[in-house]
């Protein structure tokens, strides 16, 4: 069944690989962007508590719309996988829609649809999430559906077989059959050494071999270990009465047993291990491309806001540095884009990526030199105040827009809790971003985007068959 998208891997799948659309030859005179000072998002009030079984609950009561979101994050993602078991986290996300003791296969979707709600789930490197947004009088339905699968998921051989095939098909369609994406995902993982840091040094989607080898006992063990209340956080946002919500949460989740804490995630990985270069042939590519990954610190690190703005100014949007200089002026690239943590934020090491697809006749290494020149310009001369103000406005607007919906707020609260270590950071984090200076952006460009900290991948199409 494919009538709606049920799963997605975060981030990278949204890569808009710029097609060969004609671009305006010159940029019109730029008007200065307004200064990035102004109102902040409204404070998101929070209440946090824990059930005796270890389930963390965070409530954000907000009656501005008659809507609730029930959003569960499990502290499990690709980083918890072991060698030979890659792809389990994502495979598991599929299993979570296959039914449980009191919910038949397919019934989850139907119950939510008949209530007028919407739902989905997704897997990232550090976490897996499941959410439903419902009219507020159906809060109980959302909570019950999440509780039922947390307590009694149907991990049967038939369901497993079924979803192994679904995941393999997803892999074929979305990665193996698409140019560049497979190479990009491999490169993101290759920035880290799987011997010392398997957690971040392997692919999110997993290998076909590992997926084929998955046994129902392995999957049951994985469920038992990670899909336990003490490894999950439940965020409730929107239009509910806290006393009633707490009563339902206790009734539905209270007697689910806790388990021993999962083993800690190990990662021993230095910055600046020395410049690494490699060439790969991408069977689906028709144009040369480059993908560079630089190692950056975990998401809560003080340098993250400046790195975010560096990514924006360098390579996000038509008027970004790389697009102006390399695509529009030098006409050397079809499109370029930067990514900060393309497979999700992390509590371990992160990645800063630049993908560039060359125009016909432009060799990948000369494209690489052009990118290096633009990075060097920022490292040497910094960015302008107007560029920074524009990046801050965009960030401020996106933060406010996110907070407009109950789902947006729920995800932001989870993000603050897991990646910043404090739910309250959902209200305070923006100040760190607005405090970034042009000098900060220049400093992080110098500190992280240096050759000895990067993995440079030159992607070439397969050689044309000789006539």
């Amino acid at each position, binding site marked *: 069944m494919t*009538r709606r998208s049920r799963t997605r891997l975060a981030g990278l799948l949204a890569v808009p690989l710029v097609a*060969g659309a*004609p671009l305006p030859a010159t940029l*019109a005179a*730029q*008007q200065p*962007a*307004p200064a990035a000072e*102004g*109102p902040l998002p*409204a404070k998101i009030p929070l209440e*946090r*508590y824990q059930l*005796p079984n270890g389930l963390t609950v965070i409530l954000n009561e907000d*009656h501005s719309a*008659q*809507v609730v979101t029930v959003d569960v994050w499990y502290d499990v993602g690709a980083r918890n996988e072991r060698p030979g078991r890659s792809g389990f986290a994502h495979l598991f996300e599929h299993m979570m829609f296959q039914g449980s*003791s009191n919910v038949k296969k397919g019934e989850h979707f139907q119950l939510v*649809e*008949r209530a*007028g709600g*919407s739902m989905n789930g997704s897997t*990232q490197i550090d976490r897996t999430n499941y959410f439903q947004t419902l*009219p507020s*009088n159906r809060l*109980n*339905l959302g909570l019950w559906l999440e*509780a039922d699968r947390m307590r009694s998921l149907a991990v049967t051989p038939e369901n497993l077989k079924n979803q192994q095939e679904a995941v393999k098909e997803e892999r074929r369609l979305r990665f193996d059959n698409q140019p560049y994406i497979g190479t990009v995902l491999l490169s993101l993982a290759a920035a880290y050494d799987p011997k010392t840091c398997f957690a971040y040094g392997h692919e999110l989607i997993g290998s076909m071999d590992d997926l084929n080898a998955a046994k129902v006992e392995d999957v049951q063990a994985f469920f038992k270990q990670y899909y336990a209340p003490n490894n999950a956080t439940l965020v409730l946002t929107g*239009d509910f009465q806290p006393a009633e919500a707490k*009563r339902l949460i*206790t009734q539905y989740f*209270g*007697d689910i047993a806790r388990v021993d804490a999962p083993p800690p995630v190990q990662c021993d990985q230095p910055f600046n291990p020395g410049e690494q270069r490699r060439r790969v042939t991408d069977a689906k590519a*028709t*144009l040369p491309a480059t993908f560079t990954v630089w190692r950056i610190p975990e*998401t*809560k690190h*003080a340098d993250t*806001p400046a790195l975010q703005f560096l990514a924006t100014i360098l390579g996000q*949007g038509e008027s970004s540095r790389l697009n102006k200089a390399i695509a529009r002026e030098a006409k050397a690239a079809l499109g370029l884009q930067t990514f900060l943590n393309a497979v*999700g*934020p992390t509590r371990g090491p992160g990645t800063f990526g630049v993908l560039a697809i060359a125009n*016909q006749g432009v060799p990948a290494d000369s494209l690489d030199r052009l990118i290096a020149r633009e990075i060097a310009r920022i490292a040497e001369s910094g960015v302008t105040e107007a560029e920074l*103000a*524009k990046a801050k406005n*965009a*960030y*401020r607007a996106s933060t*406010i*827009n996110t907070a*407009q*919906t109950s789902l947006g707020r729920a995800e932001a609260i989870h993000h*603050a809790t897991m990646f*910043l*270590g404090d*739910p*309250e*950071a959902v209200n*305070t984090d923006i100040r*760190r971003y607005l405090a970034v200076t042009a000098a900060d952006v220049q400093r992080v460009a110098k500190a992280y985007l240096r050759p000895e900290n990067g993995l440079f991948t030159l992607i070439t199409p397969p050689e044309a068959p000789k006539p």
Partner: protein
Amino acid sequence: MTRPSSLRRAGATALALTAVAASAPAADAQYPTKPPAAAAVQPAQLPPFQEEVLPNGLRVVLVENHRDPIVAFRLVLPAGRLYEPKGKEGISEMAAGLLTKGAGSRTADQVAEAIEGAGGSLSGAADDDFLALTGSVLADQTALAFQLLGDAVARPAFPDKEIDLLRTQTLSALQLEQSQPASIAARVFAAGLYGDHPYGRRPTPETVRAITKADLTAFQQTRLRPRGGLLVIAGDVTLEQVRALAAQHLAGWTGYPAANPAFGAPPTRARPEIVLVHRPGSVQSNIVVGNLTAGPGDPQVFAAMVANKVLGGGSDARLFDILREKKGWTYGAYSSLARPRGTGYFNATAEVRTEVTDSALVELLAQLRRLGNEPVPATELENAKGALVGIFPLTVETAQQVAERVAFVKTRGLPGDYLQTYRTRLSGVTAPTLQVAARRWVRPQQALVVVVGDGQKIHQKLAAIGSVRIVTPQGDAMSVADLTPRASAVALDVSRLAARRDSFVVRVQGNPMGASVYELAKDADGWVVREATTIAGGMIQQNTTLRTDASLAPRALEQRGKVQGRDTKADVTFAGGRAKGAAQTPSPQGIKDVAVDAELPAGTLDDNAAAFALPLLRWAPGAKHVVSTFSAGKGVAVPLTYEVKGTESVTVPAGTFEAFRIEQSGGDQPIAYFVTTAAPHRLVRIVVANQIEMALAK
């Protein structure tokens, strides 16, 4: 994009971590083994509106919401399709697109830069009745929003460059529509339903080409006026601010729009009518069944919405369940209600395999009748109402959504409490009221039925259901005899064939994007056509080898290609009046496998030979040839009609030539060929779907 984050704050969390459950479970609070029942629906709590008319006559509705510092706006003016001059259909949509492409002191790039730099958005669109400018800004940028809106409606520049660009994009989109059966069906349905009423008119390449800068300026001058318009603002702004900003940025904008043009009422229908849109070679049929309904404020509208939900409002509805899940005839089948300001319509759509076209239509009509003939069972009714009542709050969660909803209510003249009472009125629908409404809103006995498909295969079956009128995808009348066009025994003057090589430049929307080389060589059994094409630096590639006999009749085809990284290919052999083989060909759903086993009428050519065959036909003003043409991508031979539509002077890199403009019809997309009027008649230019051009280089 993932939400980035900042450093952790020093110290412990600001929140107390309460390590106990908030309240002990009551003794009777067992874990339920059935989905818990819905709690009562609370009355809607939409924020109150403030409404006033500005000094220049513009009506403003303000929905204050100060939770987040964001302001959403929607400026709606009566300047939609209803007001388009005849022959200029498409002008409202073009004007809407151009208002933000240069206005006041800003160029198009500067408008985009200003709004994006301020963390906002602004865009224009037009529908049946209205032209709307929609967007949002951070609250401290509200003045900028008013400035951009004021410039857009009162001082648009309509730069030639932007007009040309949008016209090209519009023409491309129209051509794309012409290749998509669902779009063809929608267009023919609207025309049949509304007749000459403007709701039924649609832009064509001719009307879009006819729109000039003067037309756009006149349309803006006469239609975009504040009186009769509506500005809905939702979010973090006060009425005082709105008044002050309007005084500053909208004050010079005054006046009434021109009086509404007169137009006739849509036609009424006493019995069902089937319109068959003949699309030769179609492997599926697109069915649309529907009828006119009522105005947007009709008292039965809530019952009609529930009836529509039961019938076809999603995957949890009768049409989907029966036509897809039970019968397996289709990927999806749905129904909907359209509610413009004037008379709206109901329709049901399904895309089915050709061989089940009649069964699916009969079932569809039966389901439409059933809605009026039988009361809806209680569970089904409750599920449908539950979904409609339930989804409502999800559609008014953000300031932007609230602005859109309020604009809908106001522009349709719906009562002031419409949104507040929306859910209770839906909840109040009963099986008897639904049935009464269904008889009036869903009328299969007076329905317009549009079927887009292969007329040769489905005409007889449809004729057994009702009277059938046949049209081309462009809407021109056809006779039953026209369904089997006699591909004339093509009179190819093969004595003029000679080995040669032609190089073409490929341009996409005017930009050079690649090259194509056609080569004709002699071999022992006849001719070998070789073609090599590369577009967009290899995003699209194709290499073809076609072997033919001495009269260009195909013997063997081998084709290899790539479309955006996906392999395409065709291997076909031709013998004994049949083509056999296999092809992988691009389609909107990805690469599609086509098994080829088709009968070929005598005289069939392979489409890859067209470049060499066309010049061998006899051309003169008005000349017309029907050629049976095999296309590996479709796996069948279809008759293509080539007709001289005029003589033009054509300039290509190889020189300037006087050429016949020969238009091909009957295929998926229209193609124009330009063959020189003088001997040796050479093919100098090909234009595919108005957007891809091949021009002879040497």
